[in-house]
């Protein structure tokens, strides 16, 4: 285990010049880190934690490495792979799930922090044979292409409509005291945490608008 000062020394050496023999850990973030990477203490991880929560209406109990994210608990332990890992950094929204009625990035939270909570994933909204109206609207309006961001878009979209109903304002709400409107700019602003690199935004906006009952 190196101390932060060792690290600083290595970093200066690296940046100081070429052809110098240098030593550094292989962690990919070293060279470009804005903040010196604090090496995670290699804690005793043989300890496993128990956690119980409800996923899509079913009680689930897991014994997990406490470092397991909610996302990986769903994908790797419960085999609910509808929730996607796009960045693992809270930057893309592909892992969006609904916990206690609010949408969150499941990559940014540990599974063990959700004891007793109610989690809804895209699999809990509907099935291929019995789709949720939002899922059906995405099919109808071709609100996807590769499909990888789609579960996150759909979970977000369902939650966005509830947020507007609940009167929660956004960055583009002109009047924080008035009920937010189901406008195109409100939808686009609220959905902007869900990246679609295929660029289906225009169609997604139409799908959400149809479910919300307003013209796109």
């Amino acid at each position: 285990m190196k101390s932060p000062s060792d690290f600083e020394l290595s970093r200066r050496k690296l940046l100081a010049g070429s052809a110098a023999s240098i030593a550094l850990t292989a962690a990919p973030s070293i060279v470009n880190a804005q903040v010196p990477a604090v090496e995670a203490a290699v804690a005793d991880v043989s300890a496993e934690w128990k956690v119980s929560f409800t996923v899509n209406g079913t009680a689930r109990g897991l014994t997990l490495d406490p470092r397991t994210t909610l996302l990986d608990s769903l994908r790797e332990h419960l085999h609910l792979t509808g929730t996607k890992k796009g960045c693992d950094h809270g930057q893309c929204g592909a892992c969006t799930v609904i916990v206690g009625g609010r949408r969150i990035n499941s990559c940014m939270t540990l599974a063990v922090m959700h004891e007793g909570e109610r989690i809804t994933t895209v699999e809990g909204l509907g099935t291929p044979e019995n789709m949720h109206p939002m899922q059906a609207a995405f099919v109808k309006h071709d609100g996807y292409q590769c499909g990888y961001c789609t579960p996150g878009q759909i979970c977000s979209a369902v939650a966005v409509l509830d947020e507007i109903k609940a009167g929660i304002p956004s960055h583009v709400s002109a009047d924080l005291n008035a009920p937010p409107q189901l406008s195109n700019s409100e939808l686009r602003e609220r959905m902007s945490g869900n990246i679609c690199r295929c660029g289906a935004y225009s169609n997604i906006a139409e799908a959400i608008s149809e479910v919300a009952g307003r013209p796109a």
Partner: protein
Amino acid sequence: MRFETPATINPIDQLKVVGKPADRIDGPLKTTGTARYAYEHHEGISNPAYGYVIGSAIAKGRITGIDLAAAKSAPGVRAIVTADNAGKLGKGDRNTAKLLGGPDIEHYHQAIALVVADTFEQARAAAELVRVDYVRTDGAFDLAAAKDIAKPQAVFGGPADTAVGDFADAFAAAPVQLDASYTTPDQAHAMMEPHASIAAWNGDKLTLWTSNQMIAWGVGEVAKTLDIPKENVRLISPFIGGGFGSKLFVRSDALLAALGARATGRPVKVALPRPFVFNNTTHRPATIQRIRIGAARDGKISAIGHEEWSGNLPGGRPEGAVAQTRLLYAGANRMTATRLAELNLPEGNAMRAPGEASGMMALEIAVDEMAERLGMDPIEFRIINDTQVDPEKPERPFSQRRLTECLRTGAERFGWNKRNPQPGGVRDGRWLVGMGVAAAFRNNLLTKSAARVRLDNNGVVTVETDMTDIGTGSYTIIAQTAAEMMGVPMEKVVVRLGDSTFPVSSGSGGQWGGNNSTAGVYAACVKLRESIAQKLGFNSAEAEFADGEVRSGNRRVPLAQAAGDGGLSAEDGIEYGDIDKKYQQSTFGAHFVEVGVDAATAEIRVRRMLAVCAAGRILNPKTARSQVIGAMTMGVGAALMEELVVDERAGFFVNHDLAGYEVPVHADIPHQDMIFLDETDPMSSPMKAKGVAELGICGVAAAVANAVYNATGVRVRDYPITLDKLLERLPNVG
């Protein structure tokens, strides 16, 4: 089936199913989270281990030592793969840098080790404990600095230098001239699904569940890299979370998963962490481009020249930005030049419309600038320089070329006549408003593609081909093709893709997938129709397939009955003669953009977008439209935000995640309109279709740039057009 002469009437022309805006048949799987992507296969994969990749922390040099002791003794660790212990590895023909580096390092974040542990968390923690010593050597990372020592380099589709007539004299003599330089930055595919693979060995046979656009290429490359027979490699890739060219080739996730699985005797899962993707894999290389146009005062081009400089690793290829300039506009005197500099940045390679996307970013600003010098409307300037023949070989016509109609249709629909040609002349509150236009152009490529079609005793038609669906809609257009050919509804068609045990297809890339893969399915269906007719004693030329029956004269037999208990199957593919040599096959379009630029802050907002495309028969207007609007979105990214920032000291892309590498989000993209001209191209295939997915991005960024110029009077020639490049030159609006 060989396709050597123009297509005549065939069953596809019935257009009962093909050409209809059918919903995607894989839509219910994608929207309910039940489509399985590479990292998500569980069936038949017991007790997998997890691999975590370690990348080089230097760009160029050598590893002098790797200390694995601490990592090896960390909890759960089963193996650590490095070049030292991986055995002898080859390199795939389509990889420029090795997928597993060491001791020599070719680029930053080149993979140098894989830590395999029982869980992902254990593997990731143990990877932090690996200590690597390096000797760093100097590298070249700055394209502008390397420009003058760049060497001529042939590029796909042409030699390093092309010349027709006497460009230099004609340009010098032209009464109106433009000589301008443009730059495009390194760009990232940034598809939503990172590269990911699961590898499992059964004896000496390897199965890879992976995310790959080109299954047969991948099999060959994996076999070559591991030095095992191709027959021992199986790739499975039914769903791909975006590619845009980044998954044309086998990447480190697949190789390292295979090596990790061999080392541990267990299936191994490897996904590239997002911050690793940008420097470990490929990107679209930056370009410097110089464009010279000379014209008479009536606007006719007499000289057009386009030069490109780009950089790549030793053995890499240039971007190819001059390609469209050889074909797009008339002009008797022409030249292009392609120069490649050796750079030690990560590997440059194909990204959506390689060559043309970058080239059109520059050329279509230059055309706008030239029109302004001539005092002409930029649409009229394009139209008077339209050509129906290859400008380098006038005896060679285009198979179809409706650029003028795209421009005119778009102008009318977009309200181009309301554009004020005087820059900075339109205000809407705090916004300076401008309109821009650009041509769209991308070649149509023909490549062989095969499929197997089976009819069972329930009348169900099953299509198998190793074609991939990267979001393009392959599943759906293949189902439409088979339904049309066999006379059944789409519900009676099952499409199975992305498995190397299926016949080899065109794969997905270069906008060649749609036309070629469906033409391959067409060929297999023709053969199946023949065997059904033969079995029934029908004349296959007269047999009609409709409504789930095959009919001939007074006889009609349900397909289910014709298939019998054993079913019937046929395998065939499409192969092409030299029809694409006799006729230039390209796709055309016009992009229209309206922007608002904040008069005080220079914030740029896209307000309206329209594309008009002429790209042969549109097999499914719904999925094809999505391809185009998606490409328009990526074009907005290229125009306004996308840039991999190079650290020229350490030699890597600094902004290597989705927070630093900005791509368009919902808030950036308005409602988008697009129109397909009604067209069929009998030179392209029996489908009479062409590609659209890359056409859609070509020219978009220039249309945005031209709109920003029209709004502000500020001409930016260095992408992306960020507000800092506008701010000091904005009109004084008081």
